[in-house]
């Protein structure tokens, strides 16, 4: 007889509205603390390189005095944000960012501006040589 109640639960569920968020057509609320891309305030950046040094995954490289990121490597842990002495480097959430082709050049990019706009989008990316292993 214990079978009856589970069957009733499933029967009830049959007539309920699904909880699905129809993702590409509608979006759920995402917390502002979610991180999936870096931004950099280039006015306050002091070129100290502590972010690149602290990064456990070798994501950040100092190019021309500013950190640049290679998203093949990133774990989005936010340790670079913790480490930045001036708070210039931040992480934000961008929905479409996830859709990146498996093309090494597209995954290597200059950090965004603080308002989420691309920095110097015309310049072609020049992928620096990555070295295996952690310092």
């Amino acid at each position, binding site marked *: 007889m214990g079978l009856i109640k589970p069957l009733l639960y499933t029967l009830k*569920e049959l007539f309920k509205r699904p909880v699905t968020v129809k993702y590409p057509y509608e979006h759920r609320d995402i917390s502002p603390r979610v991180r999936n891309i870096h931004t950099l305030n280039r006015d306050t950046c002091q070129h100290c390189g502590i972010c690149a040094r602290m990064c456990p995954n070798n994501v950040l490289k100092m190019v021309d005095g500013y950190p640049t990121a290679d998203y093949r490597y990133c774990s989005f842990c936010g340790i670079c944000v913790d480490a930045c002495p001036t708070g210039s480097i931040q992480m934000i959430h961008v929905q479409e960012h996830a859709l990146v082709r498996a093309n090494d050049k597209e995954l290597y990019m200059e950090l965004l501006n603080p308002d989420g706009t691309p920095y110097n989008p015309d310049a072609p990316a020049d992928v620096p040589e990555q070295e295996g292993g952690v310092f």
Partner: protein
Amino acid sequence: MIFPHSLGAWTHVLRIWIGDNMLADSLLFKLFVFPGTVFSFIIVLFLFWWWRKIGASIQSRYGPKHVGPSGTLQTIADVLKLITKESIVPEMASKWFWFMPVFSFVLSFLFLSLIPFSDHWVIIDFDASLIMLFAVMAIEPLFIFLVGWASYNKYGVAGGERAGIQMLGYEVFLALTFVPVIMMSHSWSLVGIVYAQGVSPTWASPVLHTFTNRGVWFGFVQPLALVLSIIAVMMAVEKKPFNIPHAEPEVLYGSSTEYGGPFYALQMLSQFLMGFLGAGLITTLYLGGWALPFVPPAVGFVLKTLVVGTIIIWLEHSLPAMRIPHFLDVAWRKLVPLAFLNIFITLIIMEVLGWA
């Protein structure tokens, strides 16, 4: 001519063999259009979609939705994709590797040919078609085992063995659940059983003959047998909680583990066809076959079968899988005695009330 030209030769042969042009054409139509190949493909594609939608709805999600309106083209895409995929034969597999799934598919068509969609739309009906049907259902597990054996795969063989265990569990029980119906109808013919339920043999006035006249639907006088038969059919077509040959966490996909591409599509379709026909059997035996007011008989049969099928799908999606000893225990210690009890009750009532 409604047939494709490649069927012309067949038509010719059949016409000569049967000697009656009208009859031969109608048999061909039954074999290849309704209720044969074309219809069964359509109903199976529909059932596959319906199965996924009901399952998704129970799991509080949408299921197929964006491929075609409400995902109706989803199953067509799935089957076409499987057909266009590469077919791999494992190196050590038997040379019968390809034939086994075809045989089991053919077997499910044999099943189909026995089910009366109406007194007109039935391919084969003779005095002992129910016995023939038991025979078909008894051979099916053997082919499932051979499918697994031919693929030279541990999981396949294990799944095949489990199909044998499954058959041990349900075969006797399945036969026993139908005995009361045979007793009450005095017939081994499926069409005869439907007639015995008071259904008119003519096209006309199905309304009047549904509940009136001499008989009633056996489902109303045999509710226990109806429930037991649904359980037995779920066992026979390997629906959860009796999905022992295909229990994914234990033996992957059972006997069809090594099959991909077109022949997996074939197996999937024959599984759903068997499910549909199992529900059709219930309709025939207990729910008055094709009798339904205001609709043509064959449509009535399909609609009723889909309702039964939906109940089976709902049960399948709401219950967990059993393990083997529990399954055998339930089948032999609980269900078989119940079926016997039902037979005796039927016997006593028939004697007392003089229903014979």
